[in-house]
């Protein structure tokens, strides 16, 4: 009973926080909206175990296709949702100047693939990406803070590399937004064909899970499936696609690293470390922009994510302090540095660059996914050697 009470207290705290942030006479109600949005994102990730590291790693190591199918569901639903929002804002994709407001459409150069490689390797070593570490924080995982702190250090390495990357790729890389070339219908048709093809490949080449013993669906069984057992990843993915559409409608594409990057940059400034970061503050995506005071929208989203995950973990009886073995912390730290470096040079992570980039029809999202797959494959080889 204690855990149900604790879940109710955390949920109530999130609700009150959203109310406090809500200003009825202010046109910008984004901050108040981001509390339920972040909590919903954390709840979905926790319940459906929607972990990008697991999605890529388990496909290679275990031939487990479930999370990857969930990722495709998220991308398919989210892309359709983005298309609706784009259509309301940009009547003619072919002849529009610039790109839709706030969408994560960024330069598609080799730096994104390199970032994906680093991020993919890091997430497999750490046992989770940035969003995975955040939702596991809500489950009481004590490796997650180590991974996130190490990611802050990884950002510093990314800042060091940025001037070289800016000159050699970022500044000159093309920004490819598919609807500008194919229009709305052409872009969506290409996407649906790609998602259907990839899903068919997964269903054909990778085995289904052995069936669990059948049981009649009664109310207790339904409640157990909703709040105790994990949700199917495809359901979680579709829910994330819907949520991504709503957050983009509020000009806040899903993303979890910009606050981490900002904190990392501020800590560096406080320590007297100055980085030359040409063009970074003008980039779209989850870039580390300093200057905002107080809680940024991304900080609100991320804190709410942890809160939402905590509520669901408590309800499911899955919250407990998970101490882990020493090797877990070491891998978490090494993986975290790679995660931070990859997220910095790619202007986001699996959420901000992969999910929000692909949903926004940006080529950069696909390049990141390509790098991610290579990095996750390499990470799998390392894990196998260490097991």
């Amino acid at each position, binding site marked *: 009973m204690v855990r149900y009470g604790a879940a109710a207290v955390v949920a109530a705290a999130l609700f009150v926080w959203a109310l406090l942030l809500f200003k009825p006479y202010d046109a910008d109600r984004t901050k108040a909206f981001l509390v339920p949005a972040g909590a919903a994102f954390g709840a979905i990730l926790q319940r459906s175990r929607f972990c990008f590291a697991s999605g890529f790693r*388990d496909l290679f190591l275990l031939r*487990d296709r479930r999370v990857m199918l969930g990722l495709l569901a998220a991308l398919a639903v989210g892309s359709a949702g983005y298309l609706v929002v784009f259509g309301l804002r940009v009547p003619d994709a072919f002849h529009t100047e610039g790109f839709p407001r706030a969408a994560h459409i960024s330069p598609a150069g080799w730096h994104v693939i390199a970032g994906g490689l680093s991020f993919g390797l890091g997430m497999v070593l750490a046992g989770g990406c940035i969003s995975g570490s955040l939702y596991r924080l809500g489950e009481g995982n004590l490796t997650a803070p180590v991974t996130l702190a190490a990611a802050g250090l990884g950002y510093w390495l990314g800042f060091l590399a940025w001037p070289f990357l800016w000159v050699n790729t970022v500044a000159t890389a093309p920004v490819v937004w598919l609807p500008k070339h194919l229009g709305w219908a052409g872009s969506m048709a290409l996407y649906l064909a790609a998602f259907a093809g990839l899903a068919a490949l997964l269903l054909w080449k990778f085995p289904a899970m052995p069936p669990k013993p059948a049981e009649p669906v009664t109310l207790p069984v339904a409640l157990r499936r909703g709040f105790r057992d994990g949700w199917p990843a495809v359901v979680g993915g579709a829910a994330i696609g819907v949520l991504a559409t709503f957050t983009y409608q509020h000009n806040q594409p899903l993303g979890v690293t910009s606050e981490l990057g900002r904190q990392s940059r501020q800590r560096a400034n406080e320590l007297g470390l100055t980085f030359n970061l040409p063009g970074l503050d003008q980039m779209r995506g989850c870039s580390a922009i300093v200057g905002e005071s107080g809680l940024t929208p991304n900080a609100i989203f991320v804190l709410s994510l942890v809160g939402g995950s905590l509520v669901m973990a408590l309800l499911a009886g899955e919250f407990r302090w*998970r101490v882990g073995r020493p090797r877990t912390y070491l891998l978490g730290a090494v993986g975290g540095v790679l995660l931070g470096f990859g997220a910095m040079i790619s202007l986001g992570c699996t959420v901000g660059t992969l999910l929000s980039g692909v949903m926004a029809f940006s080529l950069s999202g696909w390049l990141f996914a390509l790098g991610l797959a290579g990095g996750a494959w390499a990470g799998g080889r390392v*894990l196998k050697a260490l097991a």
Partner: protein
Amino acid sequence: MNEPTVDIRGEPCGMPVLRVEKFLLEQSGGAAFTVLGDHEQTMDQLRLLASKHGWTCDVGREGRDDWRANFKPR
């Protein structure tokens, strides 16, 4: 006689299944064994692993927080 037990609690995500696979292939000698875990998703993956190698794997709760998987050759 007690079956050998592989304890994968507290391991980083992804590693436990690889450890169990290594045990199954190199140390089990084809005899039944038990795995103790603390993560539902990992236990599900153990069922997939068992099926891949032609074994059976029954997963159930162990105490309040943990899980137990019984591996047996078919």
